[in-house]
């Protein structure tokens, strides 16, 4: 089987994929395939995007006005849809970011004592 399946994969929490898509698009507009790959690469392949689930997520973000779709040409000169972060989306990313930091910090505070006590 592929090495993706041998590594410990991490399932996406509800809404996390949306946040990662916004974060990826902060670097500039990209098409769906590039977004999926950027997420995988930038997480050292720990996060495997179920690529099919990317499309509902993209359309959800469009609906909320956080990203915009526009036509363009891919690197292989093919017609492809590019997704771009809107001003509203940039603001939302800041919100998501601080929410995430709070969340991650809280989890870390709960988990740390267990490690130190050596109960694991």
């Amino acid at each position: 089987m592929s090495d993706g399946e041998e590594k410990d994969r991490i399932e996406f929490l509800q809404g996390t994929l949306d946040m990662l898509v916004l974060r990826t698009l902060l670097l500039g507009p990209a098409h769906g395939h590039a977004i999926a790959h950027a997420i995988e690469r930038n997480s050292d392949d720990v996060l495997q995007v179920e690529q099919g689930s990317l499309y509902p997520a993209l359309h959800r973000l469009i609906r909320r006005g956080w990203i915009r779709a526009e036509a363009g040409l891919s690197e292989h000169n093919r017609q492809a849809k590019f997704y771009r972060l809107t001003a509203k989306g940039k603001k939302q990313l800041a919100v998501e970011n601080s929410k995430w930091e709070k969340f991650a910090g809280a989890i870390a505070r709960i988990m740390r004592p267990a490690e130190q006590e050596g109960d694991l």
Partner: protein
Amino acid sequence: MKWRRRMEEELERDIAEHIAMETDDNIARGMSPAEARHAALRKFGNVAIAMEDTRNVWAWAKLDTWYADLRQAFRRLRRSPGTAALAVLSLALAFAPSVTVFSVMDRIFLTPIPVKAPAEIVEILFRDTRPNASQKYQSVSYPEFQDFRRSLQSFSGLVYESRGGAVVALNGRRALAGAHFVSEDYFSVLGVPMRLGPGFLKGRPSVIVSHSFWMRELAGRRDIVGQRLLVNGQNMTVGGVTPPEFLGTAGIPIPPTDLWMPVETWGVSALKRRDWREGGALARLRPGVSLSQASAEVDGYCRRLAQEWPDTNRYLESYTPCRPPPRCIVWTRAR
């Protein structure tokens, strides 16, 4: 609904592009083209589910705007109760007739098999009158179908269909596909418009592919019409793609139909045998002709057939039930 259609097409193209890019990447990583495409599909996951989930997002988007409108309307109505009462009354009066019309239309037009005016479609079958017959009902052979089509006046069109399988070569891989062998005017008589392409081509062997087969095995490529497919070792030109909601005429489409091919590709001997009753004959009632009038005509014609072809038709009388099959079955299929 135009908006919806455009969104669907764009999404299809987007997903097809995505899979094509992944395939290219895999080839660049050293996989064979067939392997690369397979891996890309596996990585993408279920295309139908991805599309369905996206459609749900659109549905919610519409609901959002409706909800905003509704709240606005209620705020206004509360300010002027007299107008509100008048509006409610006129709405009630307006709804009554349209509800009645809708219940009638629902019965006639909204039957789930997505063919034009499904209530006009009947199936022609034989009933074996011998008390110890092994099969009480029999379908129709191709020569019998041709006789029907030539002689019966009650129908504006008749089509023939026979279920089978076919081996399709795809990127060096062979796949078993559910195939339907049909008469050449099948889609026009049933009133199923092609999603893509003109339909069966005149003068050369052609094949129509189902929407799901097109998305799954042919990458949803929009330039697929006119391309060659190797089906049962024969070169066939793709003439069209069916709309996604058309899954064939069977009540329960299992196994799914992937391809429709002209019945001529079925093999000459099968086409000539009068006792080879391997197909169904579906007929569309001419406007103004009732089911009982049509059955009477088919009955009379079957008695003539029995005299003309005593060896094969002596014990058979006609049976023309309404198609499509009962709704409850169809609904379980549709959802």
